[in-house]
């Protein structure tokens, strides 16, 4: 199973000591600032801070980093290329605009990678339901459903093989290929719905969402360091914007 999909308990890393809601708050701060800025300096400073956090999220080996970030890097490259090739600017200006977009995309998405690498899904659900009053029905329902995602990959393979065994293949015909793909997806969907129904019944039988006030065995504690973490994110953004203004690069998107 590929790493981004499998939902097991996350490995404990230094960054795991920060409460998930504090991490999410920091993500929101960084996201807002990066969406406003339109220059290259701001996202570069933010990106430097994010890269400095990679070891704290347990991403020390280049292979691990690559495994978690390759789709992100690929899309950033794509966006840069589209801007250089099809943008209205020419020469160095085109390259600068392209690079700005690419760096922004990476700086925007990297906090998500850090969050996923350092946050246990159960702890996240605990923190969201306890601190942000997200409904337990949504929080733990989503958690239970996500747990089933890796099974879909196995199921897809066996449905595909079962179709071949029945004498159904597309050969080189693209139309037949598309129909076969749609049929396989439909069977997969039907199976997923049936399993989801069974899961809902089982959770129901265990008294989930039955109107009784739910308790939480693990709890989720907010400590001073969580506040410091958010303050750190604000500080990084302040430094980034200040640097940008001082170098004359500042150029918010709405101006």
């Amino acid at each position, binding site marked *: 199973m590929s790493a981004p999909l499998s939902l097991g*308990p996350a490995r404990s890393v230094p960054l795991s000591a920060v409460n998930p809601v504090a991490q999410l708050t920091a993500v929101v701060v960084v996201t807002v600032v990066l969406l406003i800025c339109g220059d290259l300096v701001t996202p570069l400073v933010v990106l430097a801070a994010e890269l400095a956090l990679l070891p704290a999220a347990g991403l020390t080996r280049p292979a691990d980093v690559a495994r978690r970030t390759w789709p992100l890097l690929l899309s950033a490259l794509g966006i840069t290329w589209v801007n250089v090739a099809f943008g209205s600017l020419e020469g160095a200006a085109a390259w600068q605009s392209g690079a700005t977009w690419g760096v922004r995309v990476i700086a925007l998405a990297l906090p998500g990678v850090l969050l996923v690498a350092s946050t246990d899904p159960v702890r996240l659900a605990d923190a969201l339901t306890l601190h942000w009053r997200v409904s337990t029905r949504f929080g733990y329902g989503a958690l239970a459903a996500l747990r089933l995602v890796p099974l879909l990959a196995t199921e897809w393979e066996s449905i595909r*093989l079962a179709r*071949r065994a*029945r004498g159904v293949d597309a050969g080189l015909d693209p139309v037949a290929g598309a129909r076969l793909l749609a049929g396989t997806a439909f069977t997969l969907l039907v199976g997923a719905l049936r399993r989801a129904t069974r899961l809902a019944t089982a959770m129901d039988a265990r008294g989930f969402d*039955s109107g009784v006030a*739910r*308790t939480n065995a693990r709890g989720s504690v907010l400590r001073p360091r969580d506040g410091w973490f958010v303050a750190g994110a604000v500080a990084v953004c302040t430094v980034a914007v200040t640097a940008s203004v001082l170098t004359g690069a500042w150029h918010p998107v709405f101006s």
Partner: protein
Amino acid sequence: MKKGHVPSHDTLRAPRGPGTRPVQHVAVAPATVRFAGWGFRHASRRAWAVRDVDLAVLPGERVLLTGASGAGKSTLLRALGGLLEPESGDVAGELTVDGAVPDRRRQRVGMVFQDPDSQLVMTRAGDDVAFGLENTGTPPPLIWSAVDTALDAVGFTLGRDRATAALSGGQKQRLVLAGALAPRPGLLLLDEPTAQLDPEGAALVRAAVVRAVADRSTTLVVVDHDVEAWLPLVDRVVELRPGGGAVEHPAGWRPAPLRLPQRHPHPPGEQLLAAVGAGYTHRGGDRPALAPTDVALRAGRTLAVTGPNGTGKSTLALLLAGLRAPTVGQVVAGSALTAGLRHPDRPPARWRAGELARRIGTVFQQPEHQFLTGRVRDELSLGPLRSGAGAAEAHATAEALLDRLGLTPLADANPFTLSGGQQRRLSVATALATRPRVLVLDEPTFGQDRKTWAELVALLAEQQDDERALCLVTHDAAVVAALADDVLTLGRPVGVG
């Protein structure tokens, strides 16, 4: 899911007022169950799923509930668990748990279903057992001791922090049982808890049940096809009749022995298919899923592939079925099988699907993966049509198979709406429709009731008489005894007969 459901007062909720100490889990009394002329009819159906059930279960009793598939066992169990929505059908008669309707007793009931994967919620073992306790509002300080007690009760020794995803089926189901036991239910309901497990896993779960109910602090109702396995564990056996009513079998009752078909052993015929040092390693895998294996399938003979989980039985079936190419060695088809192929020198894994279906038929563990149409009749004619038969011939084949398998009354039904046993028969029939010389079946008798089991075995025995080569991947010792000429035990290959 019901909102605003009022919990009854004899639940585990500890009083939370000032001055009250959190109460330790008091020994909860086992529940009493009473059915009086009870019946249920699903909203969209004309026939009653269950009717005229009169049954009283006393506190601490252990009851095994049996009956053919479709007799309404699962419906009855859901009703007991308070999981049947009133608007989902009509109710007749009366059903009470401790003198109240089951809906008001939901916190007294623990349930375990078939599929462990759709019952686990959390990523760690301990968190999952705690889930039910959290839902009933148990104060956090009391939860972990209750979790440890429940894990101990089922003999789960791998620790609270074990990842649930990495457990075997038997261990997962054991954990599900611990989760059901943790809130100390007065009534424990098990709905075919071992149907999806291999024999070792099933034994593990039954042992856990024995341990858990040893002190008779909970009333137990088990639904299962595998009557013999549960007999030593239960006090009473009650059989639901398909037409309605429930009969209790007297003490010392044993199920009638399985009907075995008349065998006509065949001398080994010509070799149709062989694995020659064939093994398989998943892409990126560090260990082979199947070690290099030699085995031959001959006309009129049946090979049973057995062995513990994880030795690659199903993988071998996929290689022989031409659905996967071996990563080492090869799968070789005999000349009787390759006749008429466009490229007879190619291995089965590279044949076109239509060519493959006419030569090697495969029956998967999950029948519904194989269904492609919306009608039983179309399902049977699809294979012949796909592999080059004319419409008239395909139609005739379908009619003959419908008749042979007793599926004619269901010819226009949607395959997905059939019962488990009917789906299984249909999936075998779809593989037979293209008249393949080789038939590969993965756990064909898994979770089937005795009637379906006997029908399947008879059907497969007929295929032997038709000079087909059969390969059965199975844990079921009875099926091996009934059909196999040769046995390949993976892990340690042994030739028999």
